[in-house]
């Protein structure tokens, strides 16, 4: 349910950006959401599309979501690998559990396309 507050925060910051840039409309916005970010993408997109209607500057904005897979780097052998599991895995190459999470927690607004 917190997807709604996050979508609202995104819309507010887009409104601010549009005002600052003197834009008529926001056409597109791209976000990166990691599989470990705790966000349900469907709920987030639903909330974004429901709430954007309230603003004439935002109502046509298309939300593009890039889902980022979970990627670890093994601190022992340097091997990088992706996994679907949220549990601490072992390195498939050397079996070590000494791993560093390098991708998967992203919650980032990448860019926006404005009509100026």
């Amino acid at each position, binding site marked *: 349910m*917190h997807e709604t507050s996050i979508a609202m*925060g995104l819309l507010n910051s887009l409104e601010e950006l549009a005002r600052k840039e003197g834009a008529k409309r926001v056409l597109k916005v791209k976000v990166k959401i990691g599989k470990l970010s*705790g966000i349900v993408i469907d709920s987030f997109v639903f909330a974004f599309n429901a709430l954007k209607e309230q603003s004439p500057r935002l109502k046509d904005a298309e939300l593009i979501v890039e889902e980022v897979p979970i990627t670890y780097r093994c601190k022992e052998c340097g091997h990088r690998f992706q996994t679907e599991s*949220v*549990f601490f895995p072992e390195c498939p190459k050397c079996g070590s559990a000494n791993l560093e999470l390098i991708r998967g927690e992203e*919650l*980032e607004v990448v860019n926006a396309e404005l009509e100026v």
Partner: protein
Amino acid sequence: MCDVCGCGQPENLFKVSDDTAKKNVEIKKSLLSKNEQVARHNKEHWDRDGVLVINLISSPGSGKTTLLERTIELLKKELKIGVLEGDIETERDAERVRRKGAAAVQLTTGGACHLEAPLVHKGYHALTKQMGGAPDILFIENVGNLVCPSSFYLGEDVRVVLISVPEGEDKPAKYPKAFKTSQAFVITKTDLLPYFDFNVEKVKNEALSLNPQLKIFTVSAKSGEGLEEWINFLKEKLKEKRKALQKV
């Protein structure tokens, strides 16, 4: 120059208005950047005041408030305790902890399923006004919910996730984010272990496989079992924090 027909006219004479009207802006900011900014501000307040801040996260009914009541009873002689009580509605939890001798401010979110840093900021100022100064330990009791609160950093030093024995052993696996982002995990209502199929070791191992750094406690607020370790952990964390602040 125009290279469509080679007429030699300047290129921009033929530009279609739609193309020129678009502008790409790089943002590269966290979706939660506003919350994180306020959370960092909260942390600055708390570091300046030397307050240890504990953010308690669990489902509704797992015993956050009851554990807090016992914790206050055991700490209030030596330490000043402040509580920010997050709930969707009512002042009930703030009243409960006040009766035990802590200062408390109720934060009602009016429907929101988690606390965010700006509301906590407002609550902290109301609390210090009420107390005439800062507490030694500030407990933030988040809205009962094992999902959403884990996405919102409030500026806390220690995030504690709780599950109670009746909730069942599968909670860490089902709610990994709460366990991955916490530093401590409390299993509550252990006096009920004889009545439930709840394997403490299995739950501990599952939680540790999500987060090997988790410090785990098993407590019963009712019988008092395990409370001493929990209280010592809090005192130790306060000592650690104040020592670290002196060095800066």
